[in-house]
């Protein structure tokens, strides 16, 4: 059943991509609707700022539209789009750094938590605590944890996205979560 549904959605995605490739904007709108949460989510995990993430997500979809002709279907469409998002994020981070903004970490090694959209929706203390503990983790660990748990990416997808060996991804996930757990225990969250 699940496999049938996955097959059906994959099948209709290919149809949407083909139609978008021939200039059907309605089909592309449908593609955006299917992928906007993950594209925005990945940008947010890289940049840690909702405004910048929205900007990059918009830029990414325009680039995806322009380059749809180059998508051959040899990789998953989401993997292909994530690479575009990642490249835009790296470019944005370089620009922000040049302009004197901190990307991810500042002197204390923590992120301005108020800029995270989670801060708006989190009412529960536990979740606020987890968010804070995540914010205190070094960037490389937080990114892998976020991509794995919040974006539901597989090891292979994270490895491709970050251009790291799978072993390194697993190590960072393990190290990061071990640190996160210690930090949560100190906060009385378990």
């Amino acid at each position, binding site marked *: 059943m699940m496999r049938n549904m996955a097959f059906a959605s994959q099948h209709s995605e290919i149809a949407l991509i083909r139609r978008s490739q021939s200039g059907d904007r309605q089909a592309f*709108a449908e593609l955006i609707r299917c992928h906007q949460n993950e594209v925005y989510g990945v940008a947010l995990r890289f940049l840690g700022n909702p405004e910048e993430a929205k900007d990059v997500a918009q830029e990414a979809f325009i680039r995806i539209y322009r380059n749809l002709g180059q998508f051959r279907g040899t990789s998953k469409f989401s993997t292909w789009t994530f690479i575009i998002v990642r490249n835009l994020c790296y470019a944005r981070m370089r620009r922000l750094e040049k302009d004197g903004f901190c990307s991810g970490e500042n002197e204390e090694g923590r992120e301005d938590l108020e800029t995270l959209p989670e801060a708006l929706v989190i009412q529960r203390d536990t979740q606020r605590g987890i968010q804070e503990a995540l914010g205190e983790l070094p960037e490389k660990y937080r990114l892998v944890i976020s991509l794995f748990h919040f974006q539901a990416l597989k090891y292979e997808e994270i490895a491709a996205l970050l251009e790291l060996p799978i072993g390194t991804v697993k190590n960072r996930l393990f190290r990061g979560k071990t640190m996160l*757990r210690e930090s949560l225990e100190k906060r009385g969250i378990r």
Partner: protein
Amino acid sequence: MKDACREIRLRFDETDPLRGAHLESCEDCVREYETWKQLNRLLDEMPPVPAPDDLLEAVLAALPRPRPKALPFDRLEAASVVLGLGFTLVAILLRGTELPSLESLFSQVPLSSLSQVLAWAAVGGAIAYALGNETRTLISVTGSYEGQVLRRKAK
């Protein structure tokens, strides 16, 4: 920590049948696995962050307009010039012959052959340019209408 334990713990997030064998014999890892699963539960309960509501609309508004297949905008002027030159050529060929229609049109004003040629070239160019503009307007009107339909459907 034993190497075997570390190796197993590194794979706590995998779905792997091999894990079961070590977990049956190592109480440390069983405890560790329980707290690991609890951490995963906590992380999975974190509220999702959906894309902003206006992202779709912003993307659609910023997409490049589809290019008209018939006559690209920047070539309209070139087409007008070519047509104007065509008219000029016709006028030059007709210069010697006595065409009543040509004569009657310009009979009110006495025109030399050269000014007749220029006049016809100007008329030709103007007609071509006007036709081009008409096409341009038509294309942009249908284009923006399509955009509106898309944006309405997106809501």
